[in-house]
């Protein structure tokens, strides 16, 4: 019963964070200087532990062939967000790295070199404003994803549905048909692992309003009927409330859910398009047909069209403390434009003008408008502050797990009371942040 150890773990972790905040560079936001010879060694941090000794070194060999005298080494990090956030405050975090999402946009300049202005880079790259602040870009996307849901087409077809449902009601009817006509679990929440629940937050495109990120923090009650959180979180509530999800959400397992949807034991999961290649691999491994896995839009239409948000997955930047910024920048440019990483991962290529991967081409052909939603500018960073202040983790799973608990009758309340509670807590924090 190591009480003291627990307290110290927190204390030590916070000390690590505190210890060297001095390591972060100054706040100046002048244009970066990437002049110098492209030569010497650089270190690249990556979250792809599975590729660090296989595919990534191959890209590095290509880069070295173009720029003799350079050497790129990779440092794979398993718990990327957590570990790298701690590393950031130590001042030593490699030369090129993926920008952890824990860094608020207004602090980007402390840790990363500006790569150019938004106006200058917009014609060349997609997703540039996702890690931008004050008109400067600090991270380039290494590949984009579209948002929607992954389905097992064969199971849906058995239930008589062959085209993506257009409304939440149509979708729920489909799920009910799956439940009654097939043995499959209609929807799998992945409640225990938690993070798959957060994809209900990635559906803002459905209202077809490019300004939504700007408007969102200005709204004190996003869970009011007709508003975005009511639509998306409300759908999750209805799925669970009508008994259309897995029986015991507490023992779910992401790795285990992959073969389940691949073989048709599960019919639907709300996820990003990045999941499609993984689930097709799982289908191959399980001896099922990989073509059963399809990507459908979130079941809401605006103006008679589906809209799916496309966004950059991780954005890579150059460390402010890099000793070899010229080579670091050259590697970043190479990796984003020439390496072929995005194509290999079936992601949306970050450079504009390169073609979409086949899976997304098919998705677009079902009548979906792919749209980028610019990050907030005048309200930049405000949404994060409200999230922290209210402790409603909009981009996470804690409050959605509670939502699932209420929906399945495991916690007190109903949809109206919980949404009223969320509106109240959000509104209070919103008033404090936006005052």
């Amino acid at each position, binding site marked *: 019963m190591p009480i003291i150890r627990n307290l110290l773990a927190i204390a030590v972790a916070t000390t690590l*964070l505190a210890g060297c905040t001095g390591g972060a560079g100054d706040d100046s936001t002048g244009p970066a200087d990437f002049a110098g010879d492209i030569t010497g060694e650089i270190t690249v941090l990556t979250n792809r532990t599975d590729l660090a000794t296989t595919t990534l070194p191959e890209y590095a060999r290509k880069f070295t062939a173009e720029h003799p005298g350079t050497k790129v080494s990779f440092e794979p990090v398993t718990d990327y967000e957590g570990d790298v956030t701690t590393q950031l405050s130590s001042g030593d975090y490699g030369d090129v790295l993926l920008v952890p999402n824990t860094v608020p946009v207004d602090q980007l300049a402390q840790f990363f070199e500006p790569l150019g202005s938004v106006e200058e880079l917009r014609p060349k790259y997609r997703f540039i404003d996702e890690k931008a602040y004050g008109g400067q870009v600090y991270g380039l996307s290494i590949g984009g994803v579209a948002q929607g849901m992954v389905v097992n087409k064969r199971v849906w077809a058995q239930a008589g549905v062959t085209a993506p449902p257009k409304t939440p009601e149509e979708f729920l009817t489909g799920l009910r048909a799956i439940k009654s006509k097939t043995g499959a679990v209609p929807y799998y929440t992945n409640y225990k692992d938690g993070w798959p629940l957060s994809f209900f937050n990635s559906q803002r495109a459905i209202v077809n309003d490019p300004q939504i990120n700007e408007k969102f923090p200005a709204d004190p009650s996003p869970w009011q009927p007709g508003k975005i959180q009511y639509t998306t979180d409300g759908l999750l509530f209805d799925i669970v409330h009508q008994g259309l999800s897995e029986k015991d959400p507490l023992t779910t397992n992401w790795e285990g859910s992959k073969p389940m949807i691949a073989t048709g034991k599960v019919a639907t999961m709300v996820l990003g398009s990045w999941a499609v290649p993984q689930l097709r691999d799982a289908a191959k491994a399980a001896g099922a047909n990989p073509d059963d896995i399809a990507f459908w839009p979130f079941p809401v239409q605006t103006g008679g069209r589906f809209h799916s948000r496309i966004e950059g997955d991780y954005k890579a930047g150059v460390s402010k403390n890099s000793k070899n910024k010229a080579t670091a920048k050259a590697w970043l440019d190479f990796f984003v434009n020439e390496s072929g990483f995005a194509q290999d991962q079936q992601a949306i290529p970050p450079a504009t003008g390169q073609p979409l991967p086949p899976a997304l081409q098919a998705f677009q052909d079902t009548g979906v408008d792919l749209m980028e939603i610019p990050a907030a500018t005048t309200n930049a960073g405000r949404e994060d502050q409200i999230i922290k202040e209210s402790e409603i983790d909009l981009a996470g799973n804690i409050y959605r797990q*509670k939502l699932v608990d209420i929906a399945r009758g495991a916690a007190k309340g109903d949809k109206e009371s919980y949404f009223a509670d969320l509106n109240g807590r959000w509104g209070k924090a919103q008033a404090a942040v936006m005052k």
Partner: protein
Amino acid sequence: MTKARTHWLYLAPALALLITFTYVPVANMVWYSFHKWDGLSPTMTGAGLGNYVRVLTDEEYRRVFLVSLYYFAASFLQIAVALYFAVVLTFQRRLRNLFKGILFFPYLLNGVAVGFVFLYLFQPGGTLDTVLGFLGVSGDHLWLGDPDIANYSLAGTSVWRFTGLSFVLFLGAIQSIPPDLYEAAEIDGANRWHQFRFIIAPGIRRIIGLSFILAISGSLSVFEIPFIMTGGANGTRTFVIRAYETAFQFRQIGLASAMAVVLLLLVLLITWVQRRIVPDEEVTLS
């Protein structure tokens, strides 16, 4: 070199480690608890007592303390089971070391491993349901999915893991009692229960007292088992899980530090009260 200096020389390595890794971080934590800070920003803003006011007044924070009650109740079971086995194994000679090993083994396992093992045990139709099926109790139970059972399941896991520790403490204490006392008692006609009641129980009173302090502080600071098994979902969120989320998910390091300080003070307070109620007297059996 004088004698006093030599003392300090020997103490220096231990003190250096203690100060660097215990007192400085705790001092830092107290310092953070009076500030608003996200763990990254080079500047902290003062918050006065604001963090403490929020921890102590917001119902969201107080409610998680109730979850500790399950673990506290379970720790009585844990102490009783451990005491029983310690006494039995004191008198039982055959296969004693084997049973000692079996009972202590769960404590040696890593808490994360224990979490995963029990996660499979508790799956609907998993090991536990299968075993219960052999005993005639049929049906799939949502051991973790049912909010009325989840905390019992987790507290049970905690008992399984920590009984070994209490057991070893008790066994060590019982073995320090001179064996001739039992012989003398037997000549006087005392049975096993009398021996336990009048020799063993008073002889190990300090260890039992210590076990209760550990039980209280342990049940307030439960973390690994619920964190691995449910992530704090389904009404199993404990105070430390909440503090962890506040610090590393919502990045409110100041507020989380205030929570940790409150927990520390609470444990110190309970220990102090316990020492006042049960004073720590020297035990003499002869």
